[in-house]
């Protein structure tokens, strides 16, 4: 459904951030994208949704395809209309608008008569938001804001939802809640989700396939249950040692174990 082939991204014509990334997001699947800070996860999402331009970035090689159509030269607004919606990192609600208006802005790109139905449906997923309709979004708690930006993105009825670190800065309980709802939404709407996460544990649980990014390259990919099994992932992303017990840092000798792909 969504396909990136050998995509290379440069900022300001010199800084090479993505060095030939290829990945595929099939219909009706959740795929996750893991990696440390600066690996190029957010840049990958921005390349898909056409947001590189405002940061002087560019796809300099390769191409991105959505339903057989090339989208790497299109404007963000048009990509969104085609059905790709991104939930930006850092819970960017419209701070000065109330919750209800925030949700409605998600439907501004479409003009059909089913918007009311969708609003109710979205509040069904996030009942907490339904109780806070008139509250100014800037004053919501972090968890509520995260729910709000997801709700807002859903209003555009996307076929593909790009999620940039929905767990960022949320308590473990809230992370669980947000991911539960994401799972339910995916099951109901059969939309595809590309999930960028630092929280490898929860991302691998919800997704069916995963890619690991390092330094702008895909270093590992495979079905999520396989990735969880991978020794390096267990060691470096999940912080678990061989037996699955928590790692004792006293015994760590980092020079002994190296990631195999480096």
């Amino acid at each position, binding site marked *: 459904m969504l396909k990136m082939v050998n995509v290379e991204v440069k900022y300001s014509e010199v800084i090479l951030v993505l060095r030939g990334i290829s990945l595929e997001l099939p219909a009706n699947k959740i795929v996750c994208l893991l990696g440390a800070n600066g690996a190029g996860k957010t840049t990958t999402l921005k390349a898909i949704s056409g947001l590189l331009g405002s940061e002087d970035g560019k796809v300099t090689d390769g191409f991105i395809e959505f339903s057989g159509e090339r989208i790497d030269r299109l404007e963000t607004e048009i990509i969104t209309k085609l059905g790709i*919606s991104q939930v930006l990192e850092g819970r960017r609600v419209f701070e000065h608008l109330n919750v209800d208006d925030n949700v*409605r802005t998600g439907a501004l790109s479409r003009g059909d008569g089913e918007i009311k139905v969708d609003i109710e449906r979205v509040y069904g997923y996030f009942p907490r938001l339904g109780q806070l309709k008139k509250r*100014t979004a*800037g004053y919501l708690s972090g968890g509520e804001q995260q729910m709000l930006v997801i709700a*807002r993105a859903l209003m555009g009825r996307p076929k593909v939802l790009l999620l940039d670190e929905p767990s960022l800065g949320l308590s473990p309980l809230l992370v669980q809640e947000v991911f539960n709802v994401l799972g339910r939404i995916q099951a109901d709407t059969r939309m595809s989700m590309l999930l960028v996460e630092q929280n490898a544990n929860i991302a691998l649980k919800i997704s069916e396939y995963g890619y690991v990014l390092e330094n702008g390259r895909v270093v590992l990919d495979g079905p999520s249950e396989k990735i969880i099994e991978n020794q390096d992932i267990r060691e470096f992303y999940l912080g678990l040692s061989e037996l699955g017990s928590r790692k004792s840092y006293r015994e760590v000798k980092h020079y002994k174990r190296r990631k195999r792909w480096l």
Partner: protein
Amino acid sequence: MNELINYLITGVANGFIYSMIAIGFILIFKCSKIFNFAQPEITILGAYIIYAATVQFKLPFMLGIGITIGLIAILALIIERVLLRPMIGQPILSIILLTLGLGSFVRGAIILIWGTEWLRFPPLFPEGGVAIGRIATLSYPHVFFLSMCSLFILSLGAYYRFSRGGLAMRATADDIIVAKVLGIKVTRVLALTWVIASTVGGIGGALLTSVTGIHYTAVEIGFKSMAVGLVGGLESLAGVIVVGPLLGIAETLIAGYIDPLVGGGLSEVAAYFVLMVVLIFRPHGIFGWETIERV
């Protein structure tokens, strides 16, 4: 007593026009963070166009207003398309300087076309006015000002608050990148803000000068409205609607009671004096956005 009431009425009527012009600044500032220094010139351009329509081409006044709206809207579209869109992504300061240059250009064009003479409208309104009770009369120009301004301000406010287009504007004002991601056509929103801003400015200028006469130094009206916008708070439409009449009243009261004592001129600077005092105590203006920070 009678005199005082008349000053108050004049102040409110003029003040609402300042509010209207200030709405223009504020819309553009909210949506694109550009402080539009060409707004005063566009304001008097409105006045000159209506002069040309009604005096030079002898059309009726209301038709003149229609023509002014049309021409100014077209001009705003051209400005947005030709000058501003290519500047998207450039530093805000360069864009602000661009509006300064645009302002000088429009002023130059006005002087070139209409010269530097005072131009006067023939009396547009009959003498007298509507009596309010026994103490005051509302002269016809003021009736007209107030009704026109309320019409424009109310319909704009309703559009901004309740329509889909208004919602797109408010969203763009809040976070332009997110607006784009949600599929809002941001360039169209910006073009629309320029059209609205310029037409309310132009109409405001046309209304005020229809009584006083036009001279290119009337850009002063625009700068006073800028002061209104800053005092009200650059993000608050409600703020300017309150502050405009207040500044208008301050001006007429000073002109009526203090100017004769000091030899005149104080009323001209009253708006800027208020601006200075307010900004010292409230840097965001009285109703401006303070950054929302959760505790």
